[in-house]
């Protein structure tokens, strides 16, 4: 998130403002920050249960699923912030021998966006983790 905030503070919107000052971007970034806060609270609950010697149940799996989704949402917003530089192939741009093309955070974000997608959604890793949560429900009932 700190990375995202820096990127939004550096990038212009075509009207002379920084993206961090644009309501649409600020709203999206804040929504992601709230999701991150929620995950931190969830992680704290998991840790507390473990420290108390209790089984945290499906919470750690949920933490993993939601963390992967949040990570993807953050890189999506980074790529959106990159504008036209989100079009550049990340490997070629990262390796360009004349120095970087576009903002330094754009190419890694595009790479992460493409790599992270397949783990999400039905049939992905998050689906397997969802099944695990469902199995834990059955075990508990």
């Amino acid at each position: 998130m700190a990375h995202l905030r820096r990127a939004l503070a550096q990038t212009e919107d075509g009207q002379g403002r920084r993206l961090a000052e644009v309501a649409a971007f600020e709203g999206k970034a804040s929504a992601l920050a709230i999701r991150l806060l929620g995950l931190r609270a969830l992680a704290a609950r998991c840790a507390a249960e473990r420290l108390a010697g209790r089984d945290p149940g499906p919470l750690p799996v949920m933490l993993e699923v939601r963390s992967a989704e949040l990570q993807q949402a953050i890189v999506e917003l980074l790529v959106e912030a990159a504008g036209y530089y989100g079009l550049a192939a990340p490997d070629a741009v990262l390796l360009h021998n004349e120095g970087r093309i576009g903002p330094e955070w754009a190419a890694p974000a595009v790479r992460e966006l493409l790599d992270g997608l397949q783990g999400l959604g039905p049939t992905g890793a998050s689906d397997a983790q969802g099944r695990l949560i469902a199995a834990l429900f059955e075990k508990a009932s």
Partner: protein
Amino acid sequence: MDFSLSDEQALLQESIARYMHDDYPFTERQKVVKSAEPFSAEHWRNFAELGWLGVPFAEADGGFGGGPVESMVMWEQFGKGLIIEPLLATVVLAGGVLRLGGNKAQKDALLPAIIGGDAQAALAFAEPQGRYNLADLTTTAVPGNGGYRLNGHKAVVLNGPAADWLVVSARSSGAQRDEAGISLFLVPAGASGVSRRDYPTVDGFTASEVYFADVELRAETLIGEEGAGRPLLEQVIDEGILAVGAEAVGCMEVLYKDTVEYCKTRKQFGQPIGKFQVLQHRMVDMFMEYEQAKSLMYMAAMRMDEGYGPQAQKAASAFKVQVGKSGRFVGQSAVQLHGGMGMTDELNIGHYFKRLTMIDTLFGNVDHHLKRFGSL
């Protein structure tokens, strides 16, 4: 309302569909993407011979006089084929500026070569700080000595590496973001003072950062009136939106159909995964998103066919918003329903997804066009 195509339009649709199916296999496309060549010279020649490069140009200029509906018909099929030949950059964008704003001498000099497949062109309109605002320009064209002196940096110029000619937007008067004072120039790519940094794009095309350092331009390189280039540029960009939007609709059709087929055959727990209700619902949603985008494609083509103005602009923005939303949903769903192989290089699914993702960015993303739609 009549959504049926004329005989000529249906013939154009059929001929491109047949070529894409028979002569443009995905494996061949991938060979070109991985090669040092930016596109297939053979396909480009064939496109020229089949007359496709001349469709939008007037008959007086050697073209076929096609309009928005012909563009829609063509690009939907090109989307299914996932072409990497630079029709968008050369014919729709740079060619579009010349078609709408070029004088006879400029058209005579370049359009026959474009239509014949002998010249490549690119539209250099975006700048690093400008995001999607066509008027945010730091590139300047200072009048003097019977011409102009061009200085500046253009970002992500599609087809820049192959272009023989660049159509460049630059500020000839006014402040950085003024709507007025923007002029368009036809610049030879090899002119003294022009330099490039080339790179591939995520979806297999090529682009360049183009730098102009004291490039001396003659007065006759000006396209249209000095300082009045902004409306012309906007119209060409809206025509580009219709083209890439229709291309996206073609991509989405392939993705939802291929995904349905895959889910019918891929088995898990002893049955095809398409039997699982959660996946069936996802595929139904993919279909509905595709059809919704297709409906707005027709709407945008018809509005633009009626004449370019606020209604056409509004329809173009509405279409771009829907394409952005639908393309994202259909693309992501297709990758996810194909599991780990969805993004592999060998399977076409990930490549369609990449193209859809890039189309969302081209000419302004969902947020940009929501705002524009609301302001028109």
